[in-house]
């Protein structure tokens, strides 16, 4: 079992002939992900890697394949339109990897996706992986292994770091989800926590947050009220100064809001385990699996 994707997931790659899109499409195919179509306007009729049919529009790709998922690797100025196109064509799970999507674009994309009844993950996220079944996005497959731990994070490489430590310690994962570091994204931490709570295979959840916003505080509230499974949390940016954006557009402390200290306090108040360093996840998770 897992959340959001598994071996029944069928994927359209938007931007499949681009530099990033083609590289990661191959990586996903090697991992075993069922890539059923690609989309690049003007390249309709071609075959990617002699196997995957390429279409001019997502609507055509959907008509031919009825995929349930799409993953987006198009340049930032076109990413919002690609998400709208996927949702309009009836794709139910849309993973937007692209970094640098204007936030005002997302204020239009978000309600559209919602109206269409689709789920968006990202943008500016590494995607997700259900080890041994499917990966959609860019998380390196070899650092993961199947097991009982659910992982959700706002960051890319920090997720890798934690997953890598878990895997090295023999602690496999149900699904690892990177929700992305942008201020407006499609799926938040709570959505993932709720899904993990429902997933019978997940026994413990690791949550890597960061400074900025109130997502983690709300997540902690959710854990307290709605979750029976144990959750271990971490906040990156304990040493970050206020008012400076730490790379991620969302990682900025505004006034007294969004500090690491208040988030960690919220975790503690919710009875969660708190990792001070990425390495701490190993022992905290192990203790909760016993």
């Amino acid at each position, binding site marked *: 079992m897992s959340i959001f994707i598994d071996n029944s997931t069928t994927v359209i790659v938007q931007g499949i002939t681009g530099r990033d899109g083609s590289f990661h499409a191959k990586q996903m195919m090697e991992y075993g992900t069922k890539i059923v179509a690609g989309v690049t306007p003007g390249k309709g009729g071609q075959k990617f890697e002699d196997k995957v049919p390429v279409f001019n529009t997502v609507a055509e790709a959907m008509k031919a394949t009825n995929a349930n998922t799409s993953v987006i690797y198009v340049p930032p100025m076109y990413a919002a339109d690609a998400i709208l196109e996927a949702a309009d064509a009836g794709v139910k799970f849309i993973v937007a990897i692209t970094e640098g999507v204007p*936030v*005002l674009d997302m204020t239009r994309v978000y309600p559209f996706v919602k109206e269409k009844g689709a789920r968006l993950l990202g943008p500016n996220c590494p995607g997700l992986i259900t080890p041994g079944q499917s990966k959609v996005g860019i998380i390196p497959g070899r650092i993961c292994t199947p097991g009982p731990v659910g992982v959700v994070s706002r960051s890319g490489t920090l997720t890798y770091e934690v997953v890598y430590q878990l895997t090295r310690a023999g602690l496999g994962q149900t699904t690892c989800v990177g929700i992305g570091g942008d201020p407006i994204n499609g799926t938040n931490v709570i959505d993932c926590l709720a899904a993990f709570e429902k997933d019978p295979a997940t026994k413990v959840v690791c949550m890597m947050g960061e400074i900025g916003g109130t997502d983690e505080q709300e997540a902690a509230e959710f854990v307290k009220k709605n979750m029976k499974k144990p959750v271990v949390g971490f906040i990156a940016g304990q*040493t970050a100064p206020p008012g400076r954006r*730490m790379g991620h557009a969302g990682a900025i402390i505004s006034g007294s809001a969004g500090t690491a200290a208040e988030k960690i306090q919220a975790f503690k108040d919710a009875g969660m385990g708190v990792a001070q360093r990425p390495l701490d996840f190993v022992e905290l998770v192990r203790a909760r699996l016993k």
Partner: protein
Amino acid sequence: MNIHEYQAKEIFRAAGIPIPPGEVATTPAEAEAIAKKFGGTVVVKAQVHAGGRGKAGGVKLAKTPQEAREVADKILKLHIKDLPVQKVLVTPAADIASEAYVGIIVDRARKKAVFMVSPAGGIDIEEVAAKTPEKIMYHPVDARYGLMDFEAQQMGFFLYKDAKQARAAASIMKQLYQAFVKSGASLAEINPLVVTPKGEVLALDAKMVVDDNELDRHPEIAKLRDESAEAPSEVQARNANLTFIKLDGNVGCVVNGAGLAMATMDLVKYYGGEPANFLDIGGSSNPEKVVNALKIITADPNVKAILFNIFGGITRTDDVANGIVTATKQNPLKVPIVIRLTGTNEEIAMKILQDNGFSASSDMDEAVKKAVELATKGGKAA
């Protein structure tokens, strides 16, 4: 991207917002000439990308051209939050009957642009929010509909009882929203919005922050960037496609990914050190980027040790290793370096480093501990 008050005013004016005239001076003599032209009392305001200009002495009244020259001279010698003041805006002083606040920001929780308006203007809105929250009206805007007339009017009536003033304010809010969207802004602010004794509604200040991600779409806005008003190291980093924030510690950090970069800084602190910076070399690194990153970090005299923490995913660790070798050949390091690499092409990277006399670890905690130790006690790694 920050733009100056005078630039934001031009954008707001083009959108139709009533704003008194103003001109920019870079010398006291220019300020004097402008004050003479306007006649009467003028306000001289530092043009600098920092809040709290008033408290820092960056905003002064001048009753005569001579006085304008004098205060301009003082202001142009200021540094506000480490940034030198290089321009002042000179505008006629307005008579003010009341001051209000109007701002738009993108709110992550509501996933919308949100208006904040308050009849208590002229002061820091965070102060109003803390002390008299009932004096702030928050109004989220549904991007699908834009700011509707009745919404602007509701906010207008929240600011003013007088219907004419409420309508004038509503119209300004519509124009401000247009300017905000058209410029790809993440913040737009008028503080204060004033009513004059004659009942006119005017914007006396203007602030706008533009979403960096929109700049490709708005070249006319992108060229408003004033690099002379930014920290030189951050300008250099941006031009090299790196994300860099200078901090006060002594451990220089080079990391891929924002989250891991923050976690690395935190771990430096955890092991008793102080990070000298935040630096993210981004996803698709190449050796050139590493060279630039090292240049920027070694330019900081506080840095006593350099720590690389690279988790290869899209980033190829051999690219990073090659970058380190190239950079240190060009400019031999004067401080010790500690390297942690793991992930894509790790074996190749390790070989490259060993062949060039560097050692590297694949363990993050070990590497951080060592870097802190070296920065604190001195010595040489590599």
